[in-house]
């Protein structure tokens, strides 16, 4: 007979603020956090052991912030990243700034040196609170352990409510390690949205009733507000033509007859001409960014503006709005009472749409990126997610992939963060393990967070990476060609590593697609490969993105090809 093991009574370990932090996050519905440990954040990592919140270890803190950012963009829920003080915190900064400019709900938690050491230039001490001030929606430096749980709930409320954004919690080591009483607190209610202004709505209705050439200009605010359904219903009922910002793509499906494409610097000709000709511009959750407007004083020169946004701070910031409607877009759009677009304008818009120049593959066997991306879009499941990096490939994805909903296309619009694509794909894939997630990247961007291939491998994430390799920093090269008299400066990457071999070293499936006749077979093999997979696609280094509105030019002066004389 075996004796029963003696039960050793151990006192329950004390409940510390770090555990209260995790419990408060769990109460907010947070299931996973992205991070990287270090000295000052160690109490939190200690509390993570055995906690129900899952931690995803990345290989660089920037990737933790960008993965949390991608997770938040895909799901609409708060993405959480964790780093230590000093270099851990400064490495998060790019991902926080990216979330700030693109209105992404992100919670960044940074360790800080103990309060007694703060202000003494201690090891790994940096003023994280101060450094991040201009790129956060709000931030907290927690000095009282008993307040930490309440701070987490307030931080989450700020990050997700109204116009979302990043919130920082800087947490000194001694505060995190302090013994506290469990708070048992929960999420706080969001503040009520501003009520629609009846007089502004009446003025908007009058402008809409009189408009002969209305255009809807839509942005990412449509996704943030959950207003895709309301937008589609409005367009279906009225046929008002729609142009979109980069981040608003998918608000209306790309193949909808009313959709004219992206506007702005690399926008479609139809979208840009329709905006320049319109007499009423209805801006829905967009912010007149310079990449969208071109030369601002020549943007939509004949139009009055109705601006619908959640954030009053955007109204008349860059373009005067005759009517401002602040509130919930999903309620405001149906309340507009728009009538069908006049037939003559619909005919004109249909002409513009039909006349859109289509990029043709040049002769030869080199892979033509626009055609490849169009084919990829056809092969992918309708609900696949595409993340992008920044540069020429990002614009080709915007122009040539079929966008069915906004949260299927994750792209760094405001900050333009090279290195965004792979960590964002990691975040999106962890949010939805069975979804097809594709990261379209370039040879410049890919190398900025290449270390995250190890994260793909570690967690067995079946992200598909399509690497368009023009052996150059292509977008910079294009500008040097067109606007700097072909004086090429530091754009050559022709000594890139063998990307397929590199991916294999990290344990990925990898192949190269070098000739267009191999495209169908290689694309299919790559999409069906087990686990994470990379398809390396060398393309013509001279390929440019067209159309292009030259800097400081009005959007109707876009170039469709390289002009004979291109001195700026």
């Amino acid at each position: 007979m075996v004796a029963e093991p003696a039960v050793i009574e151990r006192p329950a370990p004390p409940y510390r603020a770090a555990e209260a932090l995790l419990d408060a996050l769990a109460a907010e519905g947070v299931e996973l956090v992205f991070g990287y440990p270090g000295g000052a954040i160690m109490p939190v990592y200690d509390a993570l052991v055995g906690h129900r919140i899952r931690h995803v270890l990345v290989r660089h803190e920037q990737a933790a912030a960008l993965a949390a950012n991608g997770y938040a963009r895909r799901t609409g829920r708060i993405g959480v990243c964790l780093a230590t003080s000093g270099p851990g915190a400064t490495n998060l900064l790019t991902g926080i700034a990216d979330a700030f400019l693109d209105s992404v709900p992100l919670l960044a938690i940074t360790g800080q040196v103990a309060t007694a050491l703060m202000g003494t230039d201690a090891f790994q001490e940096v003023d994280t609170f101060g450094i991040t001030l201009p790129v956060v929606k709000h931030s907290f430096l927690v000095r009282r352990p008993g307040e930490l749980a309440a701070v987490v709930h307030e931080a989450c409320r700020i990050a997700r409510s109204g116009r979302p954004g990043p919130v920082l919690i800087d947490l000194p080591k001694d505060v995190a390690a302090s013994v506290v009483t469990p708070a048992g607190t929960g999420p706080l209610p969001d503040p009520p949205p501003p009520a629609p202004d009846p007089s502004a709505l009446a003025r908007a209705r009058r402008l809409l009733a009189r408009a002969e050439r209305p255009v809807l200009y839509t942005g990412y605010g449509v996704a943030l507000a959950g207003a895709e359904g309301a937008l589609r219903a409005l367009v279906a009922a009225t046929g008002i033509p729609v142009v979109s910002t980069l981040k608003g793509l998918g608000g209306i499906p790309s193949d909808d007859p009313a959709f004219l494409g992206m506007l702005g610097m690399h926008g479609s000709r139809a979208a840009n001409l329709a905006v320049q000709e319109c007499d009423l511009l209805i801006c829905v959750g967009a912010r007149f960014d310079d990449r969208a407007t071109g030369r601002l004083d020549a943007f939509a020169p004949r139009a009055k503006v109705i601006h619908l946004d959640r954030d009053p701070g955007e109204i008349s910031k860059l373009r005067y709005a005759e009517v401002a409607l602040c509130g919930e877009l999903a309620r405001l759009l149906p309340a507009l009472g728009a009538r069908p677009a006049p037939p003559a304008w619909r005919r004109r818009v249909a002409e513009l749409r039909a006349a859109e120049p289509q990029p043709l593959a040049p002769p030869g066997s080199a892979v033509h990126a626009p055609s490849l991306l169009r084919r990829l879009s056809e092969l992918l499941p309708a609900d696949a997610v595409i993340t992008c990096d920044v540069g020429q490939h990002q614009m080709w994805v915007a122009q040539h992939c079929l966008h069915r909903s906004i949260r299927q296309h994750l792209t760094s619009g405001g900050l333009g963060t090279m290195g965004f694509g792979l960590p964002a794909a990691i975040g999106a894939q962890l949010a939805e393990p069975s979804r097809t997630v594709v990261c379209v990247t370039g040879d410049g961007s890919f190398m900025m967070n290449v270390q995250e291939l190890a994260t793909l491998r570690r967690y067995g994430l079946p992200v598909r990476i399509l690497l368009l390799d023009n052996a150059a920093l292509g977008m910079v090269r294009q500008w040097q060609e067109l606007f700097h008299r072909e004086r090429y400066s530091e754009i050559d990457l022709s000594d890139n590593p063998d990307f397929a071999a590199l991916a294999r070293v990290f344990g990925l499936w990898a192949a190269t697609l070098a000739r267009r006749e191999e495209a169908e077979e290689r694309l299919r093999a790559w999409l069906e490969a087990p686990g994470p997979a990379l398809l390396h696609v060398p393309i013509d280094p001279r390929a440019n993105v067209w159309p292009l509105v030259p800097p400081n030019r009005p959007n109707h002066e876009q170039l469709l090809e390289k002009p004979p004389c291109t001195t700026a």
Partner: protein
Amino acid sequence: MHHRLSLRLRPAEGAVLRVLGSIERRGFAIEGIESRRENGWIGLAVALSGERSVEVLARQLARLYDVLAVEIEAAPDAYTAACLQQSFGEPAAVRP
């Protein structure tokens, strides 16, 4: 153009810095500041100059979590007056 803003802030670490930083980053020069701690809040008066719209600036400041109220010491346009309401704190006081 010269303007004067009066703000009521939460007595939180970084509140004054956040407001002053925002004013400069949005393109205005700060010409003078007065700050005092009251019961439960910080009063901040800022004299500033700039060519951009002070109404837009006031709305950008009003959306900061630490900003409880903003006054433009000149009549703001009707739209700005209506939306200088702080979502998280008490309603903004706007001088008519």
